[in-house]
């Protein structure tokens, strides 16, 4: 596109400008003659080559007509004034306003014709006069009087818009026009060459072919809904396009204020507003102004969202992201612009141009916007049906957000706002933490692919649209392509390190949970466990907000799965059992609404719950989780039941499992296993008899195993565990029937090696679970006859009860006398474990998202913000940050007393499965 053409176009517009002035002159406003002359002088200076254009004439005639109409209306008004006819005056006033609109459209100027202003001034004066003249007022007819009052109101309202112009006109009716032009001229000269070209470009295009201009609008809008541009919208576009050189900071600012003020008002179309503002960004004069307007655009785009439960339209979301990227471009290009939401900047702060040296403050909060964008993304995933293509399409937008977050974070880090950077980092963490390596790789590839494919087309398009329109051209400085490390762990490490260093407590806690989840996902059980215990999150999680509690539950579930995968059955059960104890696992993990028979939920609660739901792709497979939980419980509980066959009620490891077993035993027929539960129950029945093969086969036939990455090895492990527990169960159950039992026989029965059996049995012997000993030369287990007679067993029970009685006596005395002087033996404390109800095992540890959650959650949050209990996370994070990540491994992990806490915390973890073995 030859610049020559543009310059031509530019001068063309100048020409038109003069025409308008002429029109005004002709329209009977004699006073402005001098001003018009002045301006023409200046203009001819500015445009050295005047071209005549065929089109011009047409335009002029149209304009002529409009102006003539207007002038005649003014004349009518003058007449009405003379006869003091307010009714007709009011009519004329409405008429002139309509005409004004037309005139403005035709001239495509944002400036109001002087004629109109003059008329307003005249009206105002007349009105004041009429109001002052009370006698005349009294004499008026009622209709006239009414019209006067109505006029008073209307004029007041109307004049507000033009206050400035009116004032200017009043001050100096002659030179007003001139000054205006001067300003324009100055500013134009200030602009760099390229910037000068752009406005003229628009002007030319729009003046040459109106149709094309419209097309271009649509291009800009690039969305279906924007096609329905309102008339007003087009009007505004043209307004600006016709007179690019005349657009000043002031005009843009004024328009901007006007549009912003309309925000939220009745009748203000949300889309329209976005469009208007988007257009304004193109005509913004200074980078700072563009930035300011862009912020408003984004706010307006957020407004588009229909309601709290719905999500933002996806194309708006995408545009929002693009806008954010442009904001970043500007911020990167002009490092002296500071975005801040704490100080109210000057009115004219944004007037400072690109070459201004000092810092320019613009109101805005990048992090808040980013978080909002993320929330909208999350919400959209919540709302879209996960089984549709739309959902997948939506998921593909994730890299788009990630790149934005990455850029924002980089920017924030550069300006040293680490705290905000940590917040942004958390958002990124939360998008990555649940992804196994395969999914992560897929995302990475997608990001590369889509960007490669799109960049060509996209970029040229973007350039075109932006190039043709924007005054302030912002080159794409920040990368539009996310960069992902090879390994998701690496990414996580970078991000969480940043967060641990500079995030606030909640951010750190969430990042820690994500970290734990991620480690667990990658089968790093010991690391995940250490992190969990060191951070003391278990102690504090009740005081946190609901979504963090959900995250905690998810992390716990994942840690449990991880423990199972690496073969730590007891630990796995410890993690999962509490999740299943209430039967509300769906609710706890926010993966669906569970219906409860006993509690009716209010709609409010239901809505809250729905808003907490995890999007489908983040779900932890519930069937797998249940299978793992029940299998863990089975492996622990079956030998345990066999060991305590006499006193089955005493040592219950998993209440849930026991209950299920009871239910299944009560069934008259046991059909073939149907769901996960049935499978595990069938396996349990086999295992009770010591039939490991059948137990394993049943478990193996579950189809959830295909969800595991290392399926083979997990099943291998599971088989070994089942054999081991089958052996133990067998020994417990039938030890009374044997006097000796050969090692060889056991090897054959359980398909285990000598060494394994020896080790397992030895363990049982040492732990006094089995009263027997090895006879080494004959490779036999010799069972000692320590079976108590019934009498003896009863005697033992009696003594036990006696000691409980003594204890309760002591406690009673203690309670009565305040325990002073009663130095009871320490072991009493341990004995309290006899008390029933401890089997539940600290049910309070799981954050309870029960029905009163709304209240609970909020109070928890209050406590949180009130600095309730300090999160011990600080400590753990400190040592995490002290970690030398480069060297790999956790060599540098340290922290005072933290290991101690780990010790006792791990003791607590162990206590979850206390009484497993003896």
């Amino acid at each position, binding site marked *: 596109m030859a610049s020559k053409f543009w310059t031509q176009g530019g001068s063309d517009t100048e020409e038109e400008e003069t025409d308008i002035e002429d029109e005004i002159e002709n329209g009977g406003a004699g006073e402005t003659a001098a001003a018009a002359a002045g301006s023409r002088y200046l203009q001819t200076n500015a445009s050295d080559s005047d071209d005549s254009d065929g089109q011009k004439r047409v335009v002029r005639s149209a304009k002529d007509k409009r102006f003539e109409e207007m002038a005649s209306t003014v004349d009518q008004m003058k007449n009405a004034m003379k006869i003091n006819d307010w009714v007709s005056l009011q009519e004329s006033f409405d008429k002139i306003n309509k005409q004004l609109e037309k005139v403005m459209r035709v001239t495509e100027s944002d400036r109001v014709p002087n004629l109109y202003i003059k008329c307003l001034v005249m009206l105002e004066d007349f009105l004041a006069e009429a109001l002052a003249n009370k006698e005349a007022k009294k004499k008026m007819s009622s209709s006239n009087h009414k019209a006067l009052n109505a006029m008073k109101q209307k004029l007041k309202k109307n004049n507000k818009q033009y206050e400035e112009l009116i004032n200017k006109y009043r001050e100096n009716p002659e030179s007003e026009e001139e000054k205006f032009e001067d300003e324009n001229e100055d500013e134009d000269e200030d602009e760099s060459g390229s910037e000068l070209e752009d406005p003229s470009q628009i002007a030319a295009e729009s003046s040459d072919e109106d149709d094309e201009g419209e097309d271009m609008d649509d291009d800009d809008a690039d969305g279906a809904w924007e096609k329905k541009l309102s008339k007003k919208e087009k009007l505004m576009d043209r307004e600006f396009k016709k007179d690019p050189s005349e657009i000043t900071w002031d005009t843009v600012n004024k328009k901007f204020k006007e549009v912003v003020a309309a925000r939220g008002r009745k009748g203000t179309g949300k889309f329209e507003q976005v469009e208007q503002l988007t257009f304004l960004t193109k005509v913004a004069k200074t980078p700072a102004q563009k930035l300011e307007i862009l912020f408003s655009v984004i706010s307006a785009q957020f407004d588009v969202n229909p309601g709290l439960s719905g999500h933002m339209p996806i194309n708006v979301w995408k545009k929002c992201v693009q806008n954010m990227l442009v904001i970043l471009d500007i911020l990167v290009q002009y490092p002296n612009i500071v975005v801040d939401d704490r100080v109210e900047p000057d009115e004219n702060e944004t007037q400072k141009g690109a070459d201004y040296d000092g810092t320019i403050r613009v109101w805005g909060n990048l992090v808040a916007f980013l978080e909002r964008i993320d929330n909208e993304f999350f919400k959209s995933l919540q709302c879209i049906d996960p089984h549709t293509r739309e959902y997948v399409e939506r998921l593909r937008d994730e890299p788009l957000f990630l790149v934005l977050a990455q850029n924002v974070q980089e920017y924030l880090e550069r300006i040293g706002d680490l705290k905000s950077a940590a917040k942004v980092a958390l958002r990124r963490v939360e998008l990555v933490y649940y992804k196994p390596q395969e999914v992560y790789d897929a995302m990475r590839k997608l990001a590369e692919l889509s960007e490669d494919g799109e960049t060509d087309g996209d970029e040229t398009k973007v350039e075109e649209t932006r190039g043709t329109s924007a005054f302030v051209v912002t080159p794409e400085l920040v990368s539009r392509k996310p960069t992902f490390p090879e390994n998701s762990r690496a990414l996580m490490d970078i991000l969480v390190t940043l967060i641990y260093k500079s995030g606030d407590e909640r951010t750190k806690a969430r990042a820690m949970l994500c970290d734990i989840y991620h480690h667990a996902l990658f089968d790093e059980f010991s690391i995940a466990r250490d992190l969990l215990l060191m951070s003391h999150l278990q102690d504090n999680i009740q005081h946190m907000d609901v979504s963090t509690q959900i995250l905690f539950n998810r992390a716990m579930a994942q840690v449990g799965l991880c423990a199972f995968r690496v073969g730590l059955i007891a630990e796995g059960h410890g993690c999962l059992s509490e999740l299943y104890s209430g039967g509300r696992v769906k609710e706890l993990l926010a993966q669906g609404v569970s219906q409860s028979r006993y509690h009716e939920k209010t709609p409010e609660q239901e809505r809250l719950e729905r808003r907490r739901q995890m999007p489908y792709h983040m779900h932890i497979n519930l069937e797998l989780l249940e299978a793992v939980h029940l299998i863990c419980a089975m492996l622990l509980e079956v030998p345990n039941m066999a060991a305590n066959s006499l006193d089955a009620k005493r040592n219950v490891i998993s209440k849930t499992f026991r209950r299920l077993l009871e239910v299944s035993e009560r069934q008259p027929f046991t059909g073939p296993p149907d769901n996960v539960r049935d499978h595990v129950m069938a396996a349990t029945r086999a295992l009770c008899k010591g039939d490991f093969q059948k137990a394993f086969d049943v478990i193996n036939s579950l189809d959830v195993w295909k969800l595991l990455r290392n399926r083979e090895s997990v099943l291998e492990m599971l088989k070994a565990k089942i054999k081991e527990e089958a052996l133990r169960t067998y020994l417990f159950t039938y030890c009374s029937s044997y006097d000796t039992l050969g090692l060889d026989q056991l090897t054959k029965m359980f398909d285990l090696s000598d060494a394994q059996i020896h080790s397992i049995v030895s*363990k049982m012997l040492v732990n006094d679970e089995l009263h027997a*000993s090895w006879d080494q*030369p004959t490779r036999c287990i010799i069972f000692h006859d320590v079976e108590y007679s019934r009498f003896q067993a009863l005697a*033992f029970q009696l003594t036990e009860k006696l000691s409980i009685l003594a204890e309760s006596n002591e406690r009673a005395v203690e309670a009565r006398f305040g325990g002073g002087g009663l130095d009871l*033996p320490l072991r009493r404390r341990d004995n309290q474990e006899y008390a029933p109800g401890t089997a539940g095992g600290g049910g309070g540890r799981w954050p309870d998202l029960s029905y009163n959650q709304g209240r609970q959650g909020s109070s928890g949050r209050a406590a949180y913000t009130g600095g309730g209990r300090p999160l011990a996370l600080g400590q753990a994070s400190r040592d995490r940050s002290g970690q030398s990540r480069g060297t790999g491994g956790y060599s540098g*992990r340290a922290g005072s*007393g933290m290991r101690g806490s780990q010790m006792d915390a791990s003791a607590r973890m162990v206590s979850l499965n206390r009484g497993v073995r003896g």
Partner: protein
Amino acid sequence: MATYDLTPRIGPNLDRHLVFPLLEFLQERQLYPDEQILKAKIELLNKTNMVDYAMDIHKSLYHTDDVPQDMVERRVEVVARLKALEDAAAPLVTFLQNPNAVQELRADKQYNLQMLNDRYQIGPDQIEALYQYAKFQFECGNYSGAADYLYQYRALCTNSERSLSALWGKLAAEILMQNWDIALEELNRLKEIIDSKSFSSPLNQVQSRIWLMHWSLFIFFNHDNGRTQIIDLFNQDKYLNAIQTSAPHLLRYLATAFIVNKRRRPQFKEFIKVIQQDQCSYKDPITEFLACVYVNYEFDGAQKKMKECEEVILNDPFLGKRVEEGNFSTVPLKDEFLENARLFIFETYCRIHQRIDMGVLFEKLNLNYEEGERWIVNLIRNSKLDAKIDSKTGTVIMEPNQPNVYEQLIDHTKALQGRTYKLVGQLLEHAQAQPAR
């Protein structure tokens, strides 16, 4: 056999000078090529002032008499600096060398400072110079001088940070001079300070503890009573935490100490749990041995590990200390370790067996038949083992030790009686006290 060498992990936690003994040991054991070790030594010496020594090593490494220019330059620089520091500290040094003058010092620090200032014109600057001088002496390898000066500096110093680093310096010097008794004293002093001082961050405190533990290895494995003390120190919660988080390799020394020490059995069980828990972060044959015997009950595995342990001990600078006895050089710790390890295996083995074939047993214990029989007879004679040897079948038969049911019942109820009496007594006491009031 360099797989189990901990020098690279221990080194960073030691003072530069303290690494020398380790390197010397490695050189002696020839785990690494000589050249590497010599190079490491030069590297080590680079930052110290022992330039002459570095030159010697350089010569022997490259078999030349030429010395690189920078070493020569460094030497000149060091000498000059030494001179300057000596001058600066001279007034105080001369004062301290005068026994009469030193007698005027009292326990009161303030008084001393005042007195020095008034009568000898020795102010804070000179005292500071003494510290620098002592440090320099230490850097030059003159440990005894450094130790003396540091001792005196501590008497005069008012800055607690400085005093702490002086203490570290003193400890290092004493270790290097192998004054184990004094070093132990210094160690305890330092430990108290570390435990009581409030550090800027817990991380620093842990780091100090880690250093302290590493340094203490020199003392504990040389001092007579060290093996008990190492357990006392390392097994404290705070120190154990530090080990687990930052230096799990120290578990080797703690495990060894537990094995060779018979007096600390109560803590042993706890320690086994720690070993079990930390198997993922650190393991070597010694900890694995314990895991085999006490966690997995794999006696064949334990036996294999025992053999590996022997190697590890011989190659460990702290554990494999040699004692020259006439023509033999023995490693006393090794023998002790093996003896105790054997006992551990046997003990556990006996617990779960009724009858053991002696041949198999001795194989597990790495003993020959004769030796083994004698060993068992000794055990039985010392009534450490409740068993009999059946010579005919070549087996050891354990005496069953099932507690009598009635005894158990009595045990259970015995305590009840006492408790009830106590309760009643308390009640009566209370009842009497009330009317009296």
